[in-house]
């Protein structure tokens, strides 16, 4: 339980903000800390609430410090874990980071430590979501020549998939928009930018309306669906296995369904 000596650090939800909290914990030698996003924090009778302002310089020092104690994969695990947005993940991350700094040996693969195991699992599920999005994003060609895709990923994976799509679709303009978090990536043939869109009134992302999309778009979707249907071999049908690969909640994006 919380008691009067506990400190509660409130931050803005950004990764820099979180790392600044970690900096604070070491700088002020705080014990028994709770880190919370400002959107999740509640006024509490217990503990001191401190609002921590994201500071890129401090965040960078923590990140560099981690670089000396752990491999690149180990640092990535922290970032992936953060993007899971799981409630309370900040505290798992803090314990993990403390273990990294304390331990003489690299802890990456010490799976018998519960925090290492837990975080590696969380990071893995974020990694899986990243791969799913790389696979299941479906671009549709709009009337003004833009390849447009919408997603609603379980975790905040847009920052992780940007590089993949940039190097793959270097010669077409594209947008991948996260409807859940209401922001997206826009590639303008040169660089990727973060954008917010106001979608037109009555826009239904699950439909390919000729008001917005190119004529040939509907044709290619039909061809793809036909193609997909003819790849099935009915004597090998195995629906159970299929659902394991493509969970039903992703079907709505896929034009072949």
């Amino acid at each position, binding site marked *: 339980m919380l008691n009067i000596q506990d400190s509660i650090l409130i931050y803005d939800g950004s990764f820099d903000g979180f790392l600044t909290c970690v900096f604070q914990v070491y700088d002020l030698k705080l014990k028994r800390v709770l880190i919370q996003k400002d959107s999740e924090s509640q006024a509490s009778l217990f503990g001191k609430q401190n609002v921590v302002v994201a500071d890129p310089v401090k965040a960078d020092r923590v990140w560099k410090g981690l670089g000396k104690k752990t491999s690149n994969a180990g640092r990535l695990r922290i970032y992936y874990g953060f993007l899971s947005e799981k409630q309370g993940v900040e505290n798992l991350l803090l314990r993990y980071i403390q273990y990294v700094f304390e331990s003489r040996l690299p802890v990456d*693969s010490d799976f018998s430590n519960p925090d290492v195991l837990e975080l590696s699992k969380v990071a893995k599920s974020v990694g899986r979501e990243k791969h799913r999005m790389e696979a299941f994003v479906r671009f549709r060609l709009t009337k003004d020549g833009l390849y447009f895709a919408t997603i609603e990923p379980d975790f905040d994976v847009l920052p992780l998939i940007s590089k993949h799509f940039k190097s793959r679709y270097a010669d077409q303009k594209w947008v991948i928009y996260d409807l859940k978090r209401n922001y997206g990536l826009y590639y303008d043939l040169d660089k990727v930018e973060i954008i917010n869109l106001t979608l037109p009134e009555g826009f239904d992302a699950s439909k390919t309306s000729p008001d917005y999309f190119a004529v040939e778009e509907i044709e290619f979707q039909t061809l793809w669906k036909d193609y997909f249907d003819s790849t099935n071999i009915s004597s090998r049908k195995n629906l159970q296995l299929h659902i394991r690969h493509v969970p039903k909640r992703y079907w709505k994006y896929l034009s072949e369904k």
Partner: protein
Amino acid sequence: MGFTRIQEKLKILADAAKYDVSCASSGSKRSNTNKGLGDATGMGICHSYTEDGRCVSLLKILLTNHCIFDCAYCVTRKSNDIKRAAFQVQEVVDLTINFYRRNYIEGLFLSSGIFKSADYTMERLVAVARKLRTEEKFNGYIHLKSIPGASDELMKEAGLYADRLSVNIEIPTKEGLKLLAPEKNREDFIKPMIKVKNEIIQYKSEKKLIKSTPLFAPGGQSTQMIIGASGESDQQIMWTSNYFYKKFELKRVYYSGYIPISYDSRLPHIGTEVPMLRENRLYQTDWLMRFYGFEVHEILNESHKNLDLEVDPKLGWALRNLEYFPVDVNTADREMLARIPGVGMKSVHKIIQARRFRRLNWEHLQRIGIAMNRAKYFLVCASQDFERRDLTSPQLKSLILQNTTSKYQKKLSPQLNLFE
């Protein structure tokens, strides 16, 4: 594009291509350096899955299903009464590019029936690949079928554009081939394979000296065998496979359970079940050979010609070789860890990492994710309680099966994680 015409062709020519099970789109190193379209550096991505659980990562079609041959096991055979169609080179290019731009696919897998002659056919396959690479600046994945009997010059050009080339030997034994495809002979299959293998070796060694040497089939070669069409044994299949891996340095051999498509009396009749479990056991054996350090004759030999369908081949081997067990997970070397039933290569790796920190007990092993129901009879660890009874192989087998029945009855596909 005449939309309905294309639609019709696509249906026919995708349908005819689906019996080729290869779906790999990984292993290439082609990156997007010309600011073109596509990038094939990473792992292959499955963009969707068919209802029988196979990965869809490539647009897999035939250029045409007209064929001058009459191989009994093939839907495209001359004597089969089916609709025929042929794509134009440009049509295949347009479909590939437009599917790729929408993130439907990783690339193209183009095969063909043989019309007029081997070279005439191969020339058109190469023309598609050339157009994609040079005119469209396409860096996605291209897999071309090497047409048996095609000339060395064409195979060489094919390798410069394609990421992977494959020739399907289809029938594992010479006798089977004679029976089912009397017009064909092994040499025709092998000739383009040798050419490609030699070119790959040469390009690789040149690349070491001169960095600008172009890629030549960076994803290597593969082949496919049909299982259960010609009465062959598992030993014949896997020894052939082993021979092709070693002799032609193949990247992959695929095993495709025969799907009855003909009333020909030389073949299993229509309605015969596709041997999917057998297919899965063969893939497991293939993995044991390639990643687990097993020699093919340890698993299949004169006194053991067919795999046991009830248990996976590693468990089968362990049951025949109980003298190697139990293995102590805290001291055993990598090779021996890999031989414990229920322990996959990922777990082997994790065990080796984790035991540097502490001696491992059952709880650790369970968290690492080994399949305890099989593994527990074959290992000892830092826990005091382990299997002490002196069980015979048949006893062990029935004990293990009691706890795993539901699992082995499931129809498995080659794309499952095979040992987990």
